[in-house]
């Protein structure tokens, strides 16, 4: 399994270079913030007309991750769809990707209907926005500034495990932002990209 293996709340996980989290004990792939349909929502609101290939690109990457890990379960930690209209728009495309995989949708602030839904597995809360740990969450799209780039990262520490956004068109919040500092004063950031590479968080923040 390529990626960065670590233990959190008594469970073994692997942070994948793609930004997905592999949870071996559950044979589950965990992803956050797919934001499917974001391009269309922006267009509807009169914003920029982004390349309309984002759903396709995100689902292709997701499909590849499911295949590579052999996951039986997919856990999506909220903000999977930008809104209702988006969900209708991509329903057909989803069928193909998720065939044979059990999907657990956790509610996010963009998700219609399911807002606030949480789950608990092995004593770990699965939710959209980090609250009382131990929990696994998304929402913030954390990005770390390093070597002149902003790289999406996993954040681990302080009882929280926060995933980067898996969606194709997503911005991000600097790991230096106060809200993230408060949640995880010390810990690890795991860079995504070609390889999943850990770097300590505390030392970067000593200022």
């Amino acid at each position, binding site marked *: 399994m390529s990626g960065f*293996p*670590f*233990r*959190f*709340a*008594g469970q*073994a996980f692997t942070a994948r270079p793609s930004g997905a989290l592999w949870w071996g004990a559950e044979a589950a792939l965990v992803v956050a913030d797919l934001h499917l349909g974001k391009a*269309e929502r922006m*267009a*509807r*609101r*009169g*914003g*920029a*007309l*982004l*390349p*309309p*290939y984002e759903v*396709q*690109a995100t689902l292709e990457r997701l499909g590849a991750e499911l295949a590579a890990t052999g996951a039986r379960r997919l856990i999506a930690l909220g903000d999977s769809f930008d809104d209702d209209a988006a969900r209708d728009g991509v329903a057909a495309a989803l069928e193909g990707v998720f065939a044979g995989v059990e999907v657990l949708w956790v509610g996010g602030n963009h998700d219609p209907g399911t807002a606030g839904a949480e789950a608990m597995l092995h004593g*770990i809360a699965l939710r959209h926005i980090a609250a009382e*740990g*131990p929990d696994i969450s998304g929402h913030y*799209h954390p*990005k770390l*500034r*390093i*070597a*002149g*780039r902003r*790289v999406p990262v996993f954040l*681990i*520490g302080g*009882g929280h495990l926060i995933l980067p956004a898996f969606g*194709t*068109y*997503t*911005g*991000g*919040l*600097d790991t*230096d*932002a106060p809200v993230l500092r408060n949640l995880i004063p010390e*810990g*690890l950031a795991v*860079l995504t*990209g*070609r*390889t999943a*590479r*850990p*770097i*300590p968080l*505390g*030392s*970067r*923040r*000593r*200022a």
Partner: protein
Amino acid sequence: MTASRAGTASPAAKSGDPAITRDTLPPAFARWFADQGWAPHPHQLALLAERDDTLLIAPTGGGKTLAGFLPSLVDLQAPEPGLHTLYVSPLKALANDIARNLARPVADLGLDIRIEDRTGDTSATRRARQRVDPPHVLLTTPESLALMLSYEEAPRIFATLRRVVIDEIHALAESKRGDQLMLGLARLRSLAPGLQVAGLSATVEDPAALARFMGGARVIEAPPGPAPDIAMLPTSAPAPWAGGGGHYAAADVMEAIRGARLTLVFINTRAQAELFFQALWAINDENLPIGLHHGSLSREARAKAEAAMASGALRALVCTGSLDLGIDWGDVDLVIQIGAPHNVKRLVQRIGRANHRYDSPSRARMVPANRFEVVECVAALQAVAENDLDGTPRADAPLDVLCQHILLTACVGPFDADALYSEVRRAGPYAALSRADFDACLDFCATGGYALRAYDRWQRLLLREGRWQLRDPRAARMIRMNIGTITDPETMKVRRRGNRVPLGEIEESFAASLTPGDTFLIGGQTVRYEGLREMVVEVTPQPARQPKIAVFNGIKMATSVQLSARVQALLGDPAQWDALPAEVREWLDLQRRISVLPEPGTLTCETFLRAGRAYFCIYGFAGRNAHQTLALLVTRRMEEAGLGPLGFVATDYAVLIWSLDPVADPAPLLAAENLRAGFDDWLAENAVMKRSFRAVAQVAGLLQRNLPGQRKSGKQATFSSDILYDTLRRFDPGHLLLRITRDAARHGLVDFDRIEAMVSDRPRLVHARAPHVTPLAAPLLLEAGRIPIRGLGEDRLIEAEAARMMAEAGLYFGDGAPDMGA
């Protein structure tokens, strides 16, 4: 020359048109000139009498601005309500300056008119008032004009307009700002038929081309003034082999400053300006007032330097291209150029800064930073003496700018595509625009222009009753917020801890490379990096510490085609070496004996071995940017051939590549068809291309730089342009924006056209196998800016930094997974 504007009826003079009475200077004006002790210049009177659009070419100090405004002031003796004259300049500061300078003649002549400026700094209330009740004379920038033209009331505001004065038009013509302005001008001509346009320009190599850029104008050339007094600055030590700072000459420059009233010291990059400024102060025993001015300093710091200079409080100012444009800086009597000038035309314009008095020669001295640059400086001196100015022909009209213009047009109200197309073709740069290209831009604005027609329901522009309009009128706000064609790299403000006043700005990529404790130079002082706080770089002063780093701006101008050719001609022909200093002659002579000289008409290469590495040197004389592209293309082929290329360094004159195995035959590596084939693949994944795409996507309105509330949240609201680029390449390779990006790559940072020219103009390939490192190649070994071969380069950077930080934190991960607790 007079060029008629295609497609426009000749403007009929309206009855009572004040322009009819402008043949001679009215008595009140003649008296005013006499009172100042001046006589009007002939070109000022020529401009006054002219009925057609005009392009005035005059050296600094030739009274250009007054020439531009004189016809307006004469007209405005009997002012009618409404906007009469629009003045556009590339600099906000210039607009302010002009307002001040006009105040005096207006008061002296008792003209009852309002003159106001309108720039990004103008207050919202004042801007709102100007929309309701415009002044007689409005001073503005291309971006502010584009914004005003997007208002619904634009037709009313500009209906009364009689004259447009475009200052420093030669500088505007060099960038997309000029294209945007010309589109705006075409709109103004539609709104105010009969409009007269005057362009004001410094000396340029091809006035007719600049007149075409304006859409056609009569060229009036002022006499050039006396020939400049320009020479090399004698230095006590010879120029070093490599490097770019010119520090070896600091004492000589100090001496020259001492002997002059006010000296401008031009230097090529901001980092070099900081370092040279420090070097001067280190030996400034008399504490002469010497200032610093460059684009990374805060506006406050720059304004302070400008004010000190205008008031005569300075003896010297170290500056970069930030001072290339024309505010009246007072009594400069010496210009010193540190480092190679890269471009003869720019050198001449800089020299013109010395002595604003028209009739006395400008004095300038040059200080080459290394031995190659000695040759370039001598070549430039010869070019100046022969008045052989270089110029790059303008690239085709940029379509991203047209996309923005179409969106802004839609902000005004519904428009007719045919009418807009013919209006756009009245803009000089777009005179040859095809209908197909126009329609592609319109389609991009309306639907995104994607092969997958996904947005038919949510089109940005809709066709209703034959006219295009915004589907959602609220979109106008977002479009207006993202006006402009300047897409500088992202910068971050620098400020002292506990102090709100910023010191300046540094590039974000540089900021990201800093770790707490690092020291760097900004505003002439050494500061210590403390950390980031809400997107601001916090520093503390570190007096008397040598900075660890002083590099915070990377983009360097490439040496022009003409000057490069002159350098090669001089360097490769011993008959001309008399013009060179002795130590340079000896250096070249040694080269001739050990290897070969890169003679004109040849593409010369050398190979040699040194310390277990094989070196391959190409004397391309094609400029830094083209050389960098060439090196990337050649090393790619070397990689395929299994030669194990390890890195390269590119300068304006040559490329040096090192590898594990030697290049046996350079011919296939440099064959035009092979380079071209490599170019297409390479383009796709190259970081420079991605940077170009980002600029194109921003200008065309795909990426929005400014979103409401973005700053406050700190959340990056835009997505990475790299991801958009990759997505488009993968799913829609024929998309308009990719096409624009590819076209742009032929010039500028990628500069592939110069590689093509290098190969086709110099068909004779000379390959010398040297026994060891050669005199010409040796300085290249010392050059800074070595680039490791890409592919994993960026990744390696991250790996190294991550490993260092892990080690620092005492964290090592072996095979066992770390337990992060809960």
